[in-house]
């Protein structure tokens, strides 16, 4: 039946048609009336109702006749309006996505760096890569100062007492046994590698933290332990109680603490200086060159987790820039020998302190710089604080008669004096308000200039010096390097003082023989070197070269040189100085070489009493006299066993020359020292 218009829930037509068929027996048009549209039914039903027995009850058309099966009407689902449901759902989803989107925007667009940084910081660690401090070596590469890797050994007493047990769980019996044995075993290891007593270490392990009252978690055991020793300690700890690694020991840690090593100890220590506890230079070249020696620390940033470094994570490293290595002009062997000989000289003179300078006259390089008493750079605390500096540059004194060399040089260069210039020397000379006399009594004597220098006559020198302008003399002294810092590279230099050109006459008289002006030992040595080497002043130097961490040479400031006197004048002065040696060759000459020198015995100014108190005995020697190569200048401060420079300082100078000359391949003299006239008729 294709009756689509009929609602589907309704009964099919068949039962009705049964009824209809029955009714159709009654009439011929019943079928057609049953299949007709409902619009025609009513009239038909009405018709039928009226034609059928009128007494029958009116019955619903679609109700089945009695006895027939009845079908309940199926439950009808209320179809909610889909539109509404969909809309609600859409709104909810839109809300959720909207919140997510806003959050995403907030996290990624507004301040992404902060969040990324926060995440990274949980994973990243940054570690300093310390720079290795530059080394200081002597002219032959012998190491004077070097850094060795080292560790500060610390312990965690709590960890040792429990042998590293995990605090979260109770200790098993085996672990408890280990914990009993651990402190003793760790103390044994520390005693073996660090020295000390076992009882002291056990006492450290018993320490408690004052604030919390519990066992201490951090105690320092030893500083500046060589790294190799520390790795041996670590290996022993890992080997543990039985030595086979099955029961390792825990609780000893190390922090980097590099050690500055001075293998030559007190040789050259006044020049090299020392470092303080933090490893920063505190005196000498360690202090003066601190910045260059220290270098620049690097940094390394990497990701790490509990299990260690993450292999492919961030790995940024800024390498450390190691310090600059310096090579000094010092010769550590000659330095040591000079130290010994100067020490002997100080002992013999019963002097307070002494200084010796050995210099190459043609280059100004300082070959040895002895300052005694001295100290051990690796243990500066044991020395007298006065000895920790470098008196050779910091202490200014009146040079005494060695100054006559410079006076004669100035006069010779001016053409006023030659070694044979004749001077009639009175027994005393008026100067200022008083008189100046010589160190030995004499009447009026006839001395050549050579003789004046050989006999170290103050009066004769004054007479000759008076021939020159005061300003000229002052100028010469300044050009010899006196009165200003020599810039050798040594820190803390005392410039000394020379009078200006408006000095009073008696000052000029005084400075001509070495009183009334102050110099330091290096200055004086360079000044005399400039006189004997042919007349060129070379700035004294202590640093020979510098090498950066990359192996390339570092530029150093060029040392200055200048002409101060003519070559002829220089030769004349050396001739006069040789006369000093020839005055008493048995005592003053050295085997194999012709030497020239000048002694000095000056009165020493004492600032405490503002008076002259004690002497400064000095001697300067150059060799070989025919072509000076090496100069040695020794100053003894406040000798009490006599005071003559020629007696006390001369032996030291000669000994140093005897060692230094062959060492630097200076050939022995082939000519005899001349004996020229010191007096005239």
């Amino acid at each position, binding site marked *: 039946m294709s009756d689509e218009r009929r609602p589907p829930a309704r009964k099919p037509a068949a039962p009705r048609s049964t009824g209809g068929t029955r009714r159709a027996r009654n009439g011929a048009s019943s079928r057609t009336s049953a299949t007709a549209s409902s619009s025609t039914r009513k009239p038909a039903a009405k018709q039928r109702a009226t034609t059928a027995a009128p007494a029958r009850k009116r019955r619903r058309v679609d109700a089945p006749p009695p006895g027939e099966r009845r079908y309940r009407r199926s439950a009808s689902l209320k179809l909610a309006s889909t539109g509404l449901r969909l809309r609600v759902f859409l709104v909810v989803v839109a809300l959720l996505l909207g919140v997510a989107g806003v959050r995403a925007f907030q996290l990624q667009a507004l301040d992404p760096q902060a969040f990324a940084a926060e995440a990274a910081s949980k994973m990243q660690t940054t570690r300093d890569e310390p720079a290795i401090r530059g080394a200081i070596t002597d002219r032959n590469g012998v190491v004077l100062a070097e850094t060795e*890797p080292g560790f500060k050994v610390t312990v965690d007493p709590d960890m040792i007492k429990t042998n590293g047990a995990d605090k979260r769980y109770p200790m098993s019996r085996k672990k408890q046994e280990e914990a009993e044995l651990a402190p003793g075993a760790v103390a044994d290891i520390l005693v073996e590698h660090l020295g000390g007593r076992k009882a002291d270490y056990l006492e450290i392990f018993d320490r408690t933290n004052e604030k919390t009252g519990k066992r201490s978690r951090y105690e320092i055991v030893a500083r500046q332990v060589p790294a190799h020793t520390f790795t041996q300690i670590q290996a022993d700890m890992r080997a543990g109680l039985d030595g086979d690694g099955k029961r390792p020991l825990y609780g000893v840690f190390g922090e980097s603490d590099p050690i500055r090593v001075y293998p030559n100890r007190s*040789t050259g220590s006044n020049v090299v200086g020392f470092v303080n506890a933090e490893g920063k230079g505190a005196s000498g070249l360690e202090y003066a060159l601190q910045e260059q020696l220290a270098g620049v620390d690097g940094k390394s940033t990497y990701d790490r987790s509990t299990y260690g*470094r993450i292999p492919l994570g961030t790995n940024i490293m800024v390498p450390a820039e190691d310090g600059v290595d310096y090579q000094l002009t010092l010769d550590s062997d000659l330095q*040591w020998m000079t130290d010994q000989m100067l020490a002997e000289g100080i002992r013999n003179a019963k002097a307070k302190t002494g200084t010796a300078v050995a210099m190459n006259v043609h280059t100004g390089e300082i070959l040895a710089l002895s300052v005694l008493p*001295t100290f051990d750079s690796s243990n500066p605390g044991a020395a007298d604080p006065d000895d920790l500096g470098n008196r050779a540059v910091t202490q200014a004194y009146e040079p005494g008669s060695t100054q006559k060399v410079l006076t004669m040089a100035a006069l010779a260069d001016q053409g006023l004096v030659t070694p044979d210039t004749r001077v009639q020397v009175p027994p005393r000379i008026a100067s200022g308000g008083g008189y100046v006399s010589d160190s030995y009594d004499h009447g009026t004597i006839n001395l050549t200039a050579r003789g004046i220098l050989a006999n170290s006559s103050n009066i004769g020198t004054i007479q000759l010096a008076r021939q020159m302008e005061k300003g000229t003399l002052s100028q010469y002294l300044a050009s010899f390097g006196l009165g200003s810092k020599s810039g050798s590279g040594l820190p803390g230099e005392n410039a000394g003082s020379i009078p200006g050109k408006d000095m009073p006459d008696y000052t000029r008289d005084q400075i001509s023989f070495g009183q009334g002006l102050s110099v330091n030992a290096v200055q004086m040595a360079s000044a005399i070197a400039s006189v004997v080497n042919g007349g060129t002043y070379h700035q004294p130097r202590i640093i020979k070269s510098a090498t950066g961490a990359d192996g390339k040479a570092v530029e150093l400031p060029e040392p200055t040189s200048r002409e101060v006197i003519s070559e002829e004048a220089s030769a004349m002065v050396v001739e006069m100085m040789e006369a000093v040696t020839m005055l008493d060759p048995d005592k003053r000459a050295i*085997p194999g070489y012709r030497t020239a020198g000048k002694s000095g015995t000056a009165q020493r100014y004492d600032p405490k009493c503002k008076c002259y108190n004690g*002497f400064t005995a000095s001697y300067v020697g150059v060799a070989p006299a025919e072509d000076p190569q090496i100069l040695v200048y020794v100053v003894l401060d406040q000798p009490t066993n006599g005071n003559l420079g020629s007696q006390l300082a001369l032996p030291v100078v000669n000994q140093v020359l005897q060692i230094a000359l*062959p060492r630097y391949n200076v050939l*022995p003299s082939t000519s005899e020292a001349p004996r020229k006239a010191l007096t005239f008729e």
Partner: protein
Amino acid sequence: MSEMTNRPRAGVSTVGFVLIVLAIVGLGLGGVMVVTTSIGAQSRELSALRNRADDLAYESAALGTQLETLSSTASLALRATDLGMVPNPYPAFVSLADGKILGTPTPVEGDELPQLRGRLPKVTDVPAQQPPAPPSESPQLPGEAPTEPVQNPDDVVAADQVGGRG
């Protein structure tokens, strides 16, 4: 009903296709695992080698320091003295060009420069781990003050009796 579209024939069956994809994915994941594991293992090896290199560098530094201390001048002087060597201050050279002898070779008596012969160190100088310390350089200086009479000039340029000794 009528066929609307022509279904193409598949090369493999559905099951086969799924298996192939799974195999490719599996291989990829397996490869990633192998690479990552090997990176991890190599990273561990690298750390171990780095540590070993550090340890060897420390040992080398410690030996270097020991060597330098032993080759310091003072230490050598002590050893030379132990061997019976003495310093020789008499210069003599052999000219390599012509074999001439320059200077006067002089045999030494053994007492020429006694202060250069290494002396035994004082007990207080010797630290625990180092070889015998070199001799102390500080001379035994007397503590007494100079006995010179105090001179009077008030200032440096005092005029009378300045007689500085020559």
